[in-house]
C-alpha cells in the first residue's frame, strides 16, 4: 500500500521559526542571521558594529558555536547582552535553539538581535531561525569561488559582506568575478566591502543596516 505523505522534512523547524518571528515581531525587534564559513570574521564585524551602534540601539547577540564560549566572551566585553548556544558538534543553529535562547534575553528592552550562526556555508542556509533577514560574510583569503560553490547561502542573503579587503592586493582574489557571481545568484542583494581589523567599510555597513532596520519597522507598522 502506498501512502502519500508530501510533508517537508524540516516542517517542524519552519513552524518554530514562524513562532520565533511572531515573538520578535510583537516586541518590535529586528533579527539578523549572520552566516559564514569559520574564520571569515563574523565576531570581529559584530564587535565593530556594536562599538558604532550601541549608543543608538538596544542590541543583543545570540552566539552559536560547536564548542567554547570564546566569541560570547568577546561580545560580552563590548557591553551588550549575549547568549551562548553550544551545538556540541551540530553544524548549524535551529529555530528551537533560538526560541530557548530568546528566553534568556530581556525582549522588552531590545531593538536588534544579531544571531551569529555556526561557521559553515552549507547547513545554516537551509534552516530558518525566524530572522528578518540573513547576511552572509565571505572573506578574501577564502577565495573568490565561494558564491558558486555555496549558492544557497548567497542566494538567500539580503547582503553579502566581503571582509578582509585589505588583503586583496596580496592574493589572486578576483573581485570582478566574485561580484559577478554574487549578483548572478542574487540580483537584489547588496555587497559591502569591509576590513573588520583595519576598521574600513563599517560606515557603509552600518548605514545599510540602519536603513534595513528602519524598513523592517516601517513594514511592521504598515507604512
Amino acid at each position, binding site marked *: *500500500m502506498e501512502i502519500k505523505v*508530501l510533508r*517537508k522534512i524540516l516542517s517542524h*523547524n519552519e513552524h518554530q521559526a514562524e513562532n520565533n518571528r511572531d515573538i520578535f515581531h510583537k516586541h518590535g525587534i529586528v533579527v539578523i542571521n549572520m552566516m559564514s564559513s569559520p574564520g571569515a570574521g563574523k565576531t570581529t564585524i559584530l564587535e565593530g558594529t556594536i562599538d558604532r551602534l550601541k549608543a543608538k540601539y538596544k542590541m543583543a547577540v545570540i552566539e552559536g558555536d560547536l564548542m567554547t564560549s570564546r566569541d560570547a566572551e568577546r561580545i560580552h566585553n563590548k557591553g551588550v547582552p549575549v547568549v551562548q548556544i553550544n551545538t556540541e558538534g551540530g553544524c548549524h543553529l535551529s529555530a528551537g535553539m533560538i526560541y530557548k535562547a530568546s528566553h534568556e534575553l530581556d525582549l522588552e528592552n531590545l531593538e536588534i538581535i544579531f544571531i551569529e550562526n555556526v561557521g559553515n556555508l552549507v547547513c545554516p542556509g537551509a534552516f530558518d531561525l525566524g530572522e528578518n533577514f540573513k547576511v552572509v560574510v565571505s572573506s578574501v583569503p577564502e577565495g573568490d569561488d565561494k558564491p558558486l560553490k555555496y549558492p544557497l547561502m548567497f542566494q538567500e542573503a539580503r547582503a553579502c559582506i566581503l571582509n578582509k579587503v585589505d588583503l586583496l592586493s596580496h592574493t589572486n582574489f578576483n573581485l570582478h568575478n566574485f561580484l559577478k*557571481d554574487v549578483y548572478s545568484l542574487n540580483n537584489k542583494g547588496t555587497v559591502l566591502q569591509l576590513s573588520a581589523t583595519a576598521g574600513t567599510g563599517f560606515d557603509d555597513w552600518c548605514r545599510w543596516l540602519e536603513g534595513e532596520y528602519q524598513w523592517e519597522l516601517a513594514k511592521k507598522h504598515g507604512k
Partner: protein
Amino acid sequence: MENMLSIINAQIQANNLKTLHKVKIVVGSLTGIVPESLDFCWQICTENSNYAGAALEIEQRQAAALCSKCGREYPLKEDYSCPLCAGGIGQIIAGKELYIDYLEGD
C-alpha cells in the same frame, strides 16, 4: 533524520502499518544533501528498529530558475547565469525541495 523518522512514525501510526517496505524522499540539488550520506544515516538509524530493511529511495531534483532579465527558465548548474542572455537568478523554481513523497507498507 530525526525529523524524518518522526514524520514516518506518525504516518505509520495513523495508517496502522505493520511493515514498512519503502520511503521515497525528494531532495533538491541546492539543499547540500549528499544522497549517499543520507542513505548511510538511514541504514544506521533503522537497522535495529521496526523499519530494518526498508528501502530509502532518493529522487534528486535539478535546480532551476527564472532569469531576472529575459524571464526564461534555465537549469542551475556550475554557472548560475542564464545561458541565453547572461542574466542572473530572478526566482528559484526548483532545487530547494526536501520532503517525504510517499511510504510503502502493509
